[in-house]
C-alpha cells in the first residue's frame, strides 16, 4: 500500500513537470527504482494529451458565440417570469422565431423606441431582437444582404459610441456582431471561396489590384454651420449642403479581357452626427441594373467611410478602449473586404 502511494505521488510530480515541458527522462532518472513503470505511465499520458489536442472548428466557435450573445441579449430583456425557462441549443431559424415572438410581445412602440438605443442601454436587447426578426422575415438573399449591410453600418456607429465611453468590453462584443454580419453577407453569396478575385487570374490575394476602387471627388460643400467640437454625443451637427458630386466605383472584370464595370453612385444629402453618418445614405445606381453591383457599390462606400470614422474615433478614444478599437478596425477592414469581394455576379 505504501509503495503504491509513493508511485502515485511520484507519477503526479513527473506528470506535472512533463506537461510543463520538462524532459521525461530527467524526472524518470530521479526515481531509478520506478524508472520502467514511470516511463510507461508518462508515455501513455503524453500520448493521451496529444490525442486531446483538438480544437472546436472556427465555424462552430463563431456560431456558438453568436448564439450565446443572442441568449444573453434576450435574457437581458426577458420578463422575470420567463427567466426560469431553459435555453436550449437551437438552429438559427428557431432563434429567429423567438425573436419575432419577442418583438410581438414587446410591442411596436417599444421596438420603435429601441431603434436609437446604444450598447448598455435598456432597450438595446429589444433593438437586437427586432433586427433578428427583420432578417428572419426577409425571404430573399438579396434583401437579407441589404439588411446585414445596414446592420453592419449601425454596429460601427455603436462601436464608436462604446469606444468613446471607454467601454472596451462593449467595443469587443459589438465588433463580434459586426464581424458576424459581414460574414453573413459573404455566406449568402456562397462565401469568398467562390469569389473570382481569389482565383490566380486575379492575383489570388485579398486587396490585390483587382479590388474595387472608389473614387470620391473633393466635396465642394460649405463648412458646417455648427461647430463639430460641441460636446454631448447625442447632439447633432447638421450642415446645409449643395448636392454632392457622384461617387464612381470601378468594379474589376471577372475575365481579364472583359471591360471593368463602372457604377455611379449618387449620394443625396448625407445626415451627419458629430462627423458620424447615422443613416446609410440612399444610393441610386445608374448602371447596370444589378442588385449585387448596387450593394457592392454601397458597401464600398460604407467601408471607406467607416474606416475613416473608426480611425478618427481611435485618435480620441480613451486609452482603455484603444486596443479593442484597433481590433474593431482590423475586423471591419477584413470583413468589408470579404463581403464586398463576395458580391459579384447575380443573386
Amino acid at each position, binding site marked *: 500500500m505504501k509503495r503504491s502511494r509513493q508511485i*502515485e505521488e511520484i507519477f503526479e510530480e513527473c506528470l506535472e513537470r512533463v506537461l510543463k515541458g520538462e524532459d521525461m527522462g530527467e524526472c524518470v532518472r530521479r526515481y531509478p527504482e520506478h524508472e520502467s513503470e514511470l516511463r510507461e505511465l508518462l508515455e501513455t*499520458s503524453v500520448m493521451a494529451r496529444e*490525442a486531446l489536442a483538438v480544437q472546436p472548428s472556427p465555424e462552430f466557435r463563431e456560431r456558438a458565440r453568436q448564439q450565446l450573445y443572442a441568449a444573453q441579449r434576450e435574457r437581458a430583456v426577458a420578463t422575470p417570469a420567463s427567466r426560469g425557462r*431553459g435555453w436550449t441549443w437551437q438552429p438559427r431559424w428557431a432563434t429567429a422565431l423567438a425573436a419575432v415572438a419577442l418583438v410581438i410581445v414587446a410591442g411596436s412602440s417599444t421596438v420603435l423606441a429601441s431603434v436609437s438605443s446604444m450598447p448598455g442601454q435598456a432597450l438595446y436587447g429589444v433593438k437586437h431582437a427586432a433586427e433578428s426578426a427583420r432578417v428572419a422575415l426577409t425571404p430573399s438573399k438579396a434583401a437579407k444582404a441589404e439588411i446585414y449591410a445596414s446592420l453592419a453600418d449601425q454596429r460601427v456607429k455603436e462601436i464608436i459610441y462604446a469606444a468613446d465611453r471607454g467601454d472596451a468590453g462593449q467595443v469587443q462584443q459589438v465588433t463580434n456582431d459586426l464581424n458576424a454580419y459581414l460574414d453573413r453577407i459573404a455566406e449568402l453569396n456562397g462565401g469568398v471561396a467562390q469569389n473570382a478575385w481569389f482565383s490566380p487570374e486575379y492575383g489570388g490575394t485579398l486587396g490585390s489590384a483587382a479590388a474595387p476602387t472608389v473614387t470620391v471627388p473633393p466635396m465642394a460643400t460649405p463648412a458646417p454651420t455648427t461647430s463639430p467640437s460641441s460636446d454631448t454625443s447625442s447632439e447633432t451637427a447638421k450642415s446645409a449642403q449643395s448636392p454632392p458630386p457622384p461617387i464612381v466605383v470601378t468594379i474589376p472584370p471577372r475575365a481579364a479581357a472583359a471591360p471593368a464595370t463602372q457604377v455611379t453612385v449618387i449620394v443625396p444629402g448625407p445626415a451627419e452626427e458629430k462627423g458620424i453618418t447615422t443613416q446609410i445614405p440612399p444610393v441610386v445606381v445608374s448602371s447596370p441594373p444589378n442588385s449585387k453591383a448596387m450593394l457592392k457599390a454601397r458597401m464600398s462606400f460604407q467601408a471607406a467611410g467607416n474606416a475613416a470614422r473608426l480611425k478618427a474615433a481611435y485618435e480620441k478614444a480613451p486609452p482603455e478602449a484603444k486596443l479593442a478599437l484597433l481590433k474593431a478596425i482590423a475586423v471591419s477592414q477584413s470583413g468589408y473586404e470579404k463581403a464586398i469581394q463576395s458580391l459579384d455576379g447575380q443573386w
Partner: protein
Amino acid sequence: MQEDEGLIREAVRGDRQAFARLYEANFDRIFRYIYLKIGDREEAEDLTQQVFLNALRSITSFKYQGTPFTAWLFRIAHNQIVDYLRKKTRRPTSLEIDETVPSNADDPEHQAELRLNIEELSRATQRLTKAQREVLSLRFAGGLSIEETARAMRKNPGAIKALQHAAVLALRKLLVVRDEAVKTD
C-alpha cells in the same frame, strides 16, 4: 488555472461581459472534455453549447463559497453528458481494434508510430471504471489540476492521485492488448 474571483462575481451579478470572458476561457476545455467522453465531434459541439446556455441560465444562483467555478461548470457538463447518454441509451461495449495504432510499446523503433486519436482514446476510456474515466477526462481533457479535479469529483486529492495512476495504468494495458491483437493478425 487560477480562477478570477472578481470576474466570477461580476458574472453572477449578471454582467454579460464577465460571463462572456468566462465562456471564452473555458470553451475549448469543456469541448475537449465532452468530446473525449462521447467520442463524437458534432454531438460534442452541440452539448458544449448547451452546457454554456445552461450555465448562463444558472449563473445567478452560483455561490462562490465551497465550489470553484470550474468544478461547477464541469459538473454541468457531466450532467449534460449523463442526460445525453441516457437519451441515446448508448452504452459502449467493446474496445474496437484500430490498426492505425500499432507496435510494441517497449520498442523504441515503434514509439514514433504509437499514435492515438481522440476517438480511439474515447473508446479506450470507455473500458475504464467510471471514476477512472472521469479523472482522465477532467485532468487531461479539461486541464484541471489535482485540487480542482478533487473538488469537481468531491473526493480528496490523494484519492484523485490514486485514481489517476490506476487510470493511466489501465489505459496503458488496454493499448498494449490492442497492440498485441494487431501483431497477431
